[in-house]
């Protein structure tokens, strides 16, 4: 989230698209209701199904799964055509006026630079035209044909309301009604908040879905303002923390990149990361990359990381592929190329696409370690559970170690919520039985491995032997020790220019501004710096005081970065430093500095007329309507059909799907076509359950006991499926047999004149726990992910459905 949960109450229009906030985030949804009741806000829901969120919406319209970009590009076209944009904001705060290179282009579904052999883009042309000083050229009059805004206008021109209707199945009148509600927030004192979740990410165009909406928000001038922003509602209490701390294969803590094979030296690595300003005088905060990186290395390797050894850069693994995401991991496993797997707090057997492939891949491992508080499907993948998990244990050689871990209430630590609030929690009870904290388990594994390396040597022992392990009890590092390490500390006295000591050696840092690239600071995650200072554990703060009741609560826990509650908040004020909406001011220029209720996302004394843009992480200081080379699949969002789609791509039939998405050969063969699987399947959560956990809890099992799918009345009638009747839902990979909920809430959509039926598949049931056994929706889903993140395409795929007799119990 750029903003906070509580800040949703400040919105005038709430767009829930690509998510089902009421269903999956019922507690946070209170702020939507608050906005409706206290502010008279309008709630707009765009979703293939009439959801629980839709049940309290002011306006609902359906959309075919996987066509959000077409819809939103249509919105952009509408906003530009009707001139319903926040002009001053767009001119001053976005790259609308910057001029793009002449060799950039887009033809027949492909951007310039496409290589059919590499199946990837050369993104060189996706850049600004630079002047002699290396700065991007600009046309403040917005007349130049290659101004970003003009290219954008041209790009979205194809997305007429008629085309949107043909692609999305959204009736034109309803689409236009949504456009008008959105357009109403272009006024400087009105905001729209975008609440989204996995309904946007779980697509082969997932990242672009979100980008398109971010562009809408930039055009409306809604980024950085109270009641605005792009608000990703995370699906797990600490999934934000997971990405922040770099638990993705291509990331290190604080969104630093994992080095690549092509970057053998630190200099190579820093060259492409230390972004120089692309406009005069801009902050381009990533220029500090080296400070973050060196401090991280000092934190990881301690004294062993020195200037001489390039801060132990050599000891870091180097990626030979863009990332080792979960799909790639299981592809390697399936091909016998990955032999061991440590699965911590994760249930791939239930969570990853194409369950049969996952099961067979796990069966090819030599060993599997599962760390979880619960008995998971993954740990039991080898057991035969009948049709819900057919398996022959005699044929599986995988040695499985199930290590029971403490639950969140059984050890202390922090959880990072969607609003980037890092909140401390305390231990409430001892873990049951033999369960141990994750820290203790990881420490035990690491210490044994390290001892083996010490004793027997081995290939490339340095990273293991030199890992800093400076904990009071090395067998069980304590949460607050780790938290302090993440915050960072001074290794030597930090001095200012005049030689005065700013921070004494050994003291905790106040924030990332104190980080240095000379090895004098250590910091485990630069964006979390400030979370555990000499003043104590900032994450444990519980002061709910909220100035102006604007939903910031600045003294409650710690929000990264720098305890900033609303990102890009410089943009909440106009170029002169006056809030666009004085009633919901966040910060303002008081003549000498930026002051207000939040930590400014800007130099605190940088004058408003200094020409410094508000998006200080970006090289040009501006919000990007043109994404440069930052997205693998194009600087502008383009509609591509899901990899399994019932219809051709109307815009460019030859490039129907996202060309930059990665598909493994076997998985491509496993895709189904509309002739055999004519209906669109989509998966989702229900309020009654949390993923695959709460099927272990009786109360939740009582509230939603049994696997089912949702089918519209028209299709049910066509197929002779009765209410609550048994059906077989199949994809080209496998099938699920479950009960049908025949509902009015899913209606066929007219896509290019032909009806498209959607079948909804809630995903909570498996073969462990107290709820009734289920197949799991991932039995059906295709093994393909988003081009940028590899998040699997769970939201749009092809299935067939037919009534079947009730299974014999």
């Amino acid at each position, binding site marked *: 989230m750029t903003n906070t949960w509580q800040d949703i109450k400040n919105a005038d229009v709430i767009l829930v698209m690509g998510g089902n906030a009421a269903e999956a985030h019922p507690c946070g949804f209170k702020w939507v209701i608050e906005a409706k009741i206290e502010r008279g806000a309008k709630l707009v829901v765009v979703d293939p199904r009439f959801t629980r969120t839709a049940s309290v919406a002011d306006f609902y319209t359906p959309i075919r799964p996987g066509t959000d970009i077409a819809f939103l590009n249509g919105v952009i076209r509408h906003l530009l055509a009707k001139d319903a944009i926040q002009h001053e904001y767009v001119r001053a705060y976005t790259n609308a006026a910057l001029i793009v290179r002449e060799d950039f282009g887009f033809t027949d579904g492909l951007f310039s630079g496409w290589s059919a052999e590499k199946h990837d883009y050369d993104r060189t042309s996706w850049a600004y035209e630079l002047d002699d000083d290396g700065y991007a050229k600009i046309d403040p009059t917005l007349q130049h044909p290659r101004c970003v805004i003009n290219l954008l206008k041209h790009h979205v021109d194809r997305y007429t309301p008629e085309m949107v209707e043909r692609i999305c199945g959204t009736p034109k009148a309803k689409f236009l009604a949504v456009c008008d509600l959105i357009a109403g927030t272009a006024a400087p004192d009105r905001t729209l908040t975008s609440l989204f979740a996995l309904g946007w990410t779980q697509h082969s165009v997932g990242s672009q879905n979100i980008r398109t909406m971010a562009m809408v928000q930039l055009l409306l001038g809604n980024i950085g303002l109270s009641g605005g922003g792009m608000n990703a509602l995370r699906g797990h209490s600490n999934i934000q923390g997971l990405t922040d701390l770099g638990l993705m294969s291509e990331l290190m803590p604080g969104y630093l990149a994992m080095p690549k094979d092509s970057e053998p030296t630190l200099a190579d690595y820093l060259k492409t990361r230390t972004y120089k300003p692309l406009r005069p005088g801009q902050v381009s905060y990533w220029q500090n990359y080296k400070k973050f990186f060196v401090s991280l290395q000092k934190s990881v390797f301690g004294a062993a990381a020195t200037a001489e050894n390039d801060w132990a850069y050599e000891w870091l693994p180097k990626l030979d592929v863009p990332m080792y995401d979960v799909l790639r991991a299981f592809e390697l496993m399936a091909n016998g190329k990955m032999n061991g797997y440590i699965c911590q707090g994760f249930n791939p057997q239930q969570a990853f696409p194409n369950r049969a492939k996952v099961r067979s891949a796990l069966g090819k491992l030599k060993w599997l370690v599962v760390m979880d508080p619960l008995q998971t499907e993954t740990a039991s993948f080898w057991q035969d559970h009948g049709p819900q998990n057919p398996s022959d244990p005699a044929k599986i050689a995988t040695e499985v170690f199930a290590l029971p871990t403490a639950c969140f209430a059984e050890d202390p630590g922090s959880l990072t919520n969607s609003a980037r609030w890092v909140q401390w929690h305390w231990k409430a009870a001892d873990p049951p039985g033999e369960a141990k904290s994750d820290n203790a388990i990881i420490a035990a594994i690491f210490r044994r491995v390290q001892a083996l390396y010490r004793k027997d040597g081995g290939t490339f022992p340095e990273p293991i032997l030199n890992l800093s392990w400076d904990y009071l009890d090395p067998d069980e590092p304590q949460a607050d020790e780790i938290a302090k390490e993440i915050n960072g500390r001074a290794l030597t006295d930090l001095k200012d220019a005049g030689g005065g000591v700013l921070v004494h050696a050994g003291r905790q840092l106040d924030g990332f501004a104190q980080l240095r690239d000379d090895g004098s600071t250590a910091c485990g995650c630069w964006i979390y710096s400030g979370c555990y200072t000499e003043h104590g554990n900032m994450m444990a703060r519980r002061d709910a005081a909220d100035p102006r009741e604007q939903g910031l609560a600045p003294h409650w826990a710690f929000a990264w970065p720098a305890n900033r509650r609303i990102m890009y908040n410089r943009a909440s004020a106009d170029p002169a430093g006056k809030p666009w909406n004085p009633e919901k001011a966040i910060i303002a220029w008081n003549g000498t500095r930026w002051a207000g209720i939040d930590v400014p996302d800007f130099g605190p004394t940088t004058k408003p007329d200094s020409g410094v843009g508000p998006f200080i992480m970006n090289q040009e200081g501006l919000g990007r309507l043109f994404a440069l080379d930052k997205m693998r699949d194009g600087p502008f969002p383009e509609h591509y059909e899901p990899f399994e789609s019932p219809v051709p791509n109307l815009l460019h039939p030859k490039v129907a799907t996202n060309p930059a998405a990665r598909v493994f050969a076997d998985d491509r063969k496993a895709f189904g076509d509309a002739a055999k699987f004519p209906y669109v399947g989509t998966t989702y959560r229900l309020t*009654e359950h949390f993923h695959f956990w709460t099927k272990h809890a009786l109360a939740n099992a009582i509230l939603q006991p049994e696997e089912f799918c949702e089918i519209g009345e028209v299709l049910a009638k066509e197929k002779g499926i009765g*209410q609550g009747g048994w059906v077989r839902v199949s994809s080209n990979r496998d099938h699920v047999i479950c009960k049908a909920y025949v509902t009015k*809430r899913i209606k066929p959509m007219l896509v290019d004149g032909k009806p498209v039926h959607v079948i909804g598949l809630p995903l909570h049931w498996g073969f462990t726990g107290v709820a009734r056994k289920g197949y799991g929706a991932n039995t059906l889903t295709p093994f393909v992910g988003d081009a940028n993140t590899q998040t699997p395409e769970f939201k749009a795929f092809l299935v067939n459905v037919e009534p079947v007799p009730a299974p014999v119990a």
Partner: protein
Amino acid sequence: MANEQSLDIVRRSASTGDPPDIRKEQQVAKLIDVSRCIGCKACQAACMEWNNLRPEMEHFEGSYDNPADLNPATWTLMRFTEYEPEDGHLEWLIRKDGCMHCADPGCLKACPAPGAIVQYRNGIVDFISEACIGCGYCVKGCPFNIPRVSKVDHKSYKCSLCSDRVSAGLEPACVKACPTGAILFGTKEDMTQWAGERVEDLKSRGYAHAGLYDPQGVGGTHVMYVLHHADRPSLYAGLPDKPKIDPLVQAWKGVFKPVALAALAATAVAGFVHWVVRGPNEVQPEDEAAGRKMLDDGPGKPEAKQ
């Protein structure tokens, strides 16, 4: 009965006589704003948790209603209705079902067990299990089809409006758990006033018939709904449009009870009077003689009489 005063009981099933009525207390109410309810079932979970209820795990039956109906261990239940008016604007009406805590409770009226159902001064209608005889009359008395008699212990159960929590100054568990503030709790006066504001808001959003459901047929209720379609409560999974204690129950528990007893007593008295006035019909010696004669001599001919 000793605790009638301390428990602020104002009405007691199957009891004659007036309960103490000196202490004053404000009437409470739970307001369920259907228009802001998202059907998350947190209220259902909280009810189970607070009251230690675990109904049997059922099956999926073609609806999000789980369990499928109220039962002795399910005191509140989200009921989901897909409503499609002619204009095609689908609505998913979600109503939290449970005891309405009527000002004039049909269950209490029907209950034959003294003190098994009581009404507290704050308006809460509560079942006192140790006095319940399991007859199921409350089920027949209730205009809302709420009480459920257990097959296990033959006691009748329903929402207590968390009378235990309320008496300690807490809100009911469902209210505490509701994430969207769709369930509110306070004095009936405050809730009614707040409902008025909500109704105005709904009207401004195009629900011309929005209104408060506080049916006067049962004297008003201590659980009230804000409905978008207050003109048609039955849209919400059969919420009664105009609930009142059924005339059959009224007749049964109203006039018939005293009338029947009086009639029986009158008959007995009439017999007594007849005895006193006419005396017993005794066999006379001549009857015995005539009878024996007939037995000895044979039947003879029937005498013609009259």
